């Protein structure tokens, strides 16, 4: 089922994500997907997240689909040129994948193969253009396709970026190129998110707010230092540091954030980062 159909039904959309393993043992990933299945509309499958080499997102998405979990197949431009990207998109549709999230991808230096040749033949915008052309029966060189996909395409944006304006310029390009939903980088500040929504709402696409589950004060500080576009405010770090039950505190913070942003957007995307088992409790606490 396409994510756009979920939005069309008027419901508040919930997505989450799983990360393919380093290796071929898919039991943990599929277990997490099964656990999320009854509570979410779709599950993102990350593509070599943080440039770390793992099992591919295409096959992983297909494995989810086979188990009745609706995948959002993440595709980045770091590792494949336009020939491979277009081919993978055709393969995905042939295997039943309907939702695709188009990203530029982290630089190779962040992962375990900093020596690799970075590709970036396309970027998030031209990848969307290319996927949209496939939807219209043509490849990037205007050759006609025999059998045509009909993807629901998504893109990402960083609402806490400073300055925000270049992100908005690019978001507009992504929407013009064919993105029909937006998932955001993790947010922790509802007021800042509201300011972003206020500027982005004219683009007319559903926005899904990214919610990262905080696991500890140390993790929050690490993200503030190292992860672009993520800022955990001090009071939340203090709350995590003082908490006797970190899981309970994390659930409480996430649920509160969801309720603060619920009326501003059309859905939430929970990034559990290893705490997939706690996602149902977060959704319970948020009343979703």
């Amino acid at each position, binding site marked *: 089922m396409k994510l756009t159909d979920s939005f069309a039904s008027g419901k508040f959309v919930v997505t989450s994500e799983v990360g393919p393993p380093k290796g071929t043992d898919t039991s943990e990933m599929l277990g997490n997907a099964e656990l999320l299945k009854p509570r979410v509309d779709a599950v993102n499958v990350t593509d070599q997240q943080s440039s770390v080499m793992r099992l591919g997102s295409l096959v992983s998405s297909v494995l989810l689909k086979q188990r009745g979990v609706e995948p959002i197949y993440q595709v980045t431009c770091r590792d494949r040129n336009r020939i491979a990207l277009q081919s993978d998109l055709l393969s995905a549709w042939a295997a039943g994948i309907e939702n695709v999230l188009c990203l530029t991808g982290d*630089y190779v230096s962040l992962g375990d193969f900093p020596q690799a040749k970075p590709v970036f033949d396309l970027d*998030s*915008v031209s990848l969307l253009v290319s996927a949209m052309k496939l939807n219209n029966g043509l490849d990037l060189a205007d050759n006609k396709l025999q059998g045509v996909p009909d993807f629901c395409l998504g893109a990402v944006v960083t609402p806490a970026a400073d300055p925000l304006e270049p992100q908005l*310029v690019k978001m507009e*390009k992504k929407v013009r190129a064919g993105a029909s939903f937006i998932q955001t980088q993790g947010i922790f500040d509802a007021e800042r998110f509201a300011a972003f929504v206020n500027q982005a709402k004219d683009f007319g696409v559903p926005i899904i707010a990214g919610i990262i589950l905080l696991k500890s004060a140390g993790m929050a500080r690490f993200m503030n230092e190292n992860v672009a576009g993520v800022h955990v405010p001090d009071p939340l770090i203090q709350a995590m540091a003082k908490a006797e039950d970190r899981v309970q505190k994390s659930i409480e913070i996430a649920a509160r954030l969801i309720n603060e942003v619920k009326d501003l957007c059309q859905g939430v995307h929970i990034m559990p980062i290893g705490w997939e088992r706690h996602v149902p409790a977060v959704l319970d606490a948020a009343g979703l």
Partner: protein
Amino acid sequence: MLVSERKSMEEIKSFLVGESKVFLLGCDGCAAASGTGGEQDILELKQQLEKEGIQVVGSKVIEFLCQKALVRRGLKPYASALRQADSILVSTCGIGVQATATVVDMPVHPACNTISLGGIRGEWQGEERCLECGQCYLDITGGICPLTACTKQLVNGPCGGAKDGRCEFEPDARPCGWQLIYERLKSLDRLDVLRQAPSLLKDYAQMQPPKRIRSTSKWAVDIETKEEIATT
């Protein structure tokens, strides 16, 4: 030596939409040798523009536009003409356009594409770099090259990886190229040019040296020398 070729008048005119007065800048170095930036080339460009109804309020050919000190000194006597102009149209390689853009406080448009010589580089002492990509984008990026300023060589805007205006790769050494482009465009009030630009798709075939250059002295000076020896 960097080889430049004039863009089509159609593309040049698309840069000048909404402008009526332009100042022309040529380069007496490689661009003169390429037939794009010498005195005669600039005169011809002036006539072509005027035929298209674009007013040229002044022109200047400077030796080595890649040298910012020379650009600054060369433009000084033209301050009043530059004040009248909406922009500067620079007919030279990508480095000359970028060097000019850093020393003036007004829009700078590239009149040329820089053609690949397959790795040979001109000598320069400034920060500007040109990949000889054959599809100069400097018009929409405020005179800062996205291929050399952005680690990922992104042409449609920034990724989400920059933090505090620094690149995710070697943040201590690299500013985010798109942050620089954003700041430049913002200061020139030209962010709309980027916003409205169509999605760009790079043609990497243009980054191979074209066949037509390979048999000429632009490719290797000794091609001509060999021929001369053979005939004498």
